[in-house]
């Protein structure tokens, strides 16, 4: 497809379980972002990749969160030992280097930790 694709769309995890969320960015987009959106709030920045390099991970809330983009295209956000406060929609966005913030967002993965 032409847009940013995220999978799964919905994920229910038991507390303590590890989860992996996938993002397929728009082909050729160098920049890839992960955001976390809690219910009723705006998205919050988690981490940023330029190609395979993770240039900013200042938004990751704890060391249980880990992201990778090994070949500079598909990215995975992994959350270890999930907690209830991790319940949120996780949004992936991609953009070209020439864009100034006009990123294209995927539909998101809604994670519910029970």
């Amino acid at each position, binding site marked *: 497809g032409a847009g*940013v694709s995220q999978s799964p769309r919905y994920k229910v995890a038991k507390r303590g379980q590890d989860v992996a969320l996938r993002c397929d960015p728009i082909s050729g987009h160098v*920049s890839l*972002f992960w*955001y976390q959106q809690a219910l*009723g*709030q*705006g*998205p*919050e*920045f988690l981490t*940023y990749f*330029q190609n395979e390099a993770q*240039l*900013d991970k200042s*938004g990751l809330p704890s060391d249980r969160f880990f992201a990778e983009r090994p070949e500079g295209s598909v990215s995975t956000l992994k959350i270890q030992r999930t907690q209830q406060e991790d319940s949120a929609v996780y*949004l992936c*966005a991609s*953009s070209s280097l020439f*864009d*100034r*913030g*006009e*990123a*294209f*967002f*995927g*539909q*998101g993965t809604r994670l519910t930790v029970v």
Partner: protein
Amino acid sequence: DQQVKQNSPSLSVQEGRISILNCDYTNSMFDYFLWYKKYPAEGPTFLISISSIKDKNEDGRFTVFLNKSAKHLSLHIVPSQPGDSAVYFCAASEGKAAGNKLTFGGGTRVLVKP
């Protein structure tokens, strides 16, 4: 601390009238501002942007105004249409030096009544 704030959580407007959405920011390093629109179960989509060197940008029915001294921006939609009913997010970026990552406000839910 919230660097980008949208103080009106919701707005109701009659079809054909003007919708005005407001946004305030505190970080003087922001140099690019964007509005995103979000429908339920979809990711945010880019609507319009403005650079800090301008005070107005217009695109069809959408106009964004920036008042740097007041650290305030607004989005005007005229005329409003039922399809404009969505959640609107204001976002700001410190530019390429910060990887164009976005800081979002909490959103304003707009309902356009036919």
